[in-house]
């Protein structure tokens, strides 16, 4: 894992203008202004190579995978399985069979909750998550805990938005059956010390799932270095298509796990008396998969790798520092979340103005941000807020776009006085 920090001897500077040329959607107007897209934590725009990879599949290789004897099906299967290998390499997994394609990060968590945790969860057991989690890393655990009579425990955070590690250690017990923790918080940008947290859990024999949705675009992830048991992510947060994600699971876990859904592709043989399930990862990929999504996902990771995550992280780190300073200089603005290590997310509130009104006024200036609870209501509640404005940065954002954000915020003040 790399700390996103630019130093004199650090990574080469990113050629942002060249990067921008790769993203068709950036070159449009919004309400008569050049589009300033700062809602990247919700979803990122897609580079031409991703769009082309998806189009190419439909124009040339469109076929089903893992079954046809004909040429197109072979090409589709090769492309789909190569995509799996690309993802494996990108996150540093040992074996492609440890990568399961899912619809989303959310589905990856639900899969682990249903197929790994549910069978081993008994009444009185505990599932441990942090206060920073997205709803997708809360609700699946609530469902399985309720069903099994287990308890969901929450690791508290401090006022800066950092996990309180001493509390985490205290909450880990022999009743803990899994820890689910977000790598990078979507609401505050906190980078959690997941490596340390995994180490602490493992000394007590507790497996850990890392929600890597927001980490993927900003940090170079190495699942073997982290030693996480499960890592879940989505393509669309990292310049790939929507509707496709990946679950990494240690092979020994996947081999033990029961199927998630039944259907085609996840079986070896079926009779009315019974079914022999296929090996992982296919055991967890019932039905015709999102083939073009997987191919687009791989294209996105190759694109990101070509720039180098250290270079990207350094650029985004600079943008975050610049934006933090500029926004703090405005009267009545308060930043929510000032963790020791942050990635690309600036969450803030403005005295006397509701985030939704700020969002509407910024939109009228062409600046796209998120205003709301960011699917992390417990985080908002922690700060006594119902919503914040969130500007989130990607590799194609510029310092000029931060100026546009600041100019937009000044307009908000003009309107609201």
């Amino acid at each position, binding site marked *: 894992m790399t700390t996103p920090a630019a130093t004199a001897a650090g990574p080469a500077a990113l050629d942002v203008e060249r990067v921008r040329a790769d993203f068709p959607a950036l070159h449009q107007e919004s*309400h008569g202004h050049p589009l300033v897209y700062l809602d990247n934590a919700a979803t990122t725009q897609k580079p031409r190579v991703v769009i082309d990879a998806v189009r190419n599949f439909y124009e040339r290789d469109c076929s089903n995978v893992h079954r046809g004897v004909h040429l197109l099906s072979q090409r589709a299967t090769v492309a789909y399985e190569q995509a799996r290998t690309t993802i494996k390499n990108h996150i540093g997994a040992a074996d492609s069979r440890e990568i399961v394609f899912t619809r989303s990060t959310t589905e990856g968590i639900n899969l682990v909750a249903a197929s790994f945790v549910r069978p081993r969860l008994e009444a009185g057991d505990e599932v441990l998550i942090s206060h920073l989690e997205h709803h997708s890393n809360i609700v699946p655990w609530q469902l399985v805990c309720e069903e099994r009579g287990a308890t969901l425990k929450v690791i508290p955070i401090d006022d800066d938005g950092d996990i309180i590690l001493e509390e985490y250690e205290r909450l880990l017990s022999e009743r803990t059956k899994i820890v689910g923790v977000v790598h990078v918080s979507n609401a505050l940008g906190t980078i959690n010390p997941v490596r340390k947290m995994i180490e602490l859990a493992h000394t007590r024999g507790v497996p850990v799932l890392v929600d890597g949705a927001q980490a993927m675009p900003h940090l170079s992830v190495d699942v073997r270095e982290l030693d996480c048991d499960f890592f879940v992510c989505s393509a669309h947060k990292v310049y790939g298509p929507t509707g496709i994600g990946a679950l990494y699971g240690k092979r020994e876990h996947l081999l033990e796990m029961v199927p998630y859904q039944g259907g085609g592709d996840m079986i070896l043989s079926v009779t009315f008396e019974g079914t022999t399930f296929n090996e992982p990862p296919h055991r967890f990929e019932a039905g015709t998969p999102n083939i073009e999504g997987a191919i687009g996902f791989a294209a996105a990771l190759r694109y990101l790798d070509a720039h180098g995550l250290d270079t990207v992280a350094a650029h985004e780190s600079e943008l975050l520092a610049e934006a933090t300073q500029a926004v703090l200089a405005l009267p009545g603005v308060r930043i929510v979340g000032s963790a020791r290590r942050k990635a690309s997310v600036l969450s803030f509130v403005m005295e006397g103005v509701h*985030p939704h009104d700020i969002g*509407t006024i910024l939109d*009228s200036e062409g600046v796209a941000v998120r*205003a*709301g*609870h960011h699917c992390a209501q417990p985080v908002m509640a922690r700060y006594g807020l*119902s919503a914040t404005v969130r500007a989130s940065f990607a590799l194609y954002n510029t310092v000029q776009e931060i100026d546009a954000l600041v100019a937009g915020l000044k307009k908000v003040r*003009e309107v609201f006085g």
Partner: protein
Amino acid sequence: MSDMRELYQEVILDHNKKPRNCYVMDCATRTADGHNPLCGDIVKVYLRIEDGVIEEISFQGHGCAICTASTSMMTESVKGKSVTEAREIFEGFHEMLTGVAEEQGVEFGKLQVFEGVREYPVRVKCATLAWHTLNAAMDGDDESVTTE
């Protein structure tokens, strides 16, 4: 910018800053809760209805400027009106925000300031949350109202 002044008219900003009838009513005969899950806007409407007439109305809650101003102005516009009249005002108000263009042109007095909201479809829910909640309170519906 002129668009924004159109949306955030002085009257709206004034009601947002100083909401009218914003208090807990101890002697309410009807109440209802409204919630906009997308924004987190929350409003509770209190009514004292006597002989089919809204003698007193108040609210509590938090939300964006459009939501707060709309709630505040709603309380002023229906106070002293019969339940039937209040429903008619709501229907007209709803039509102003969501109806097709040809049907426009009906005058709504002060509530006309919300006409600009129709240009912002995602904000229509902010302007109508209080009215849906009022409707539920008049119906005697205990279920929480959501705009989803």
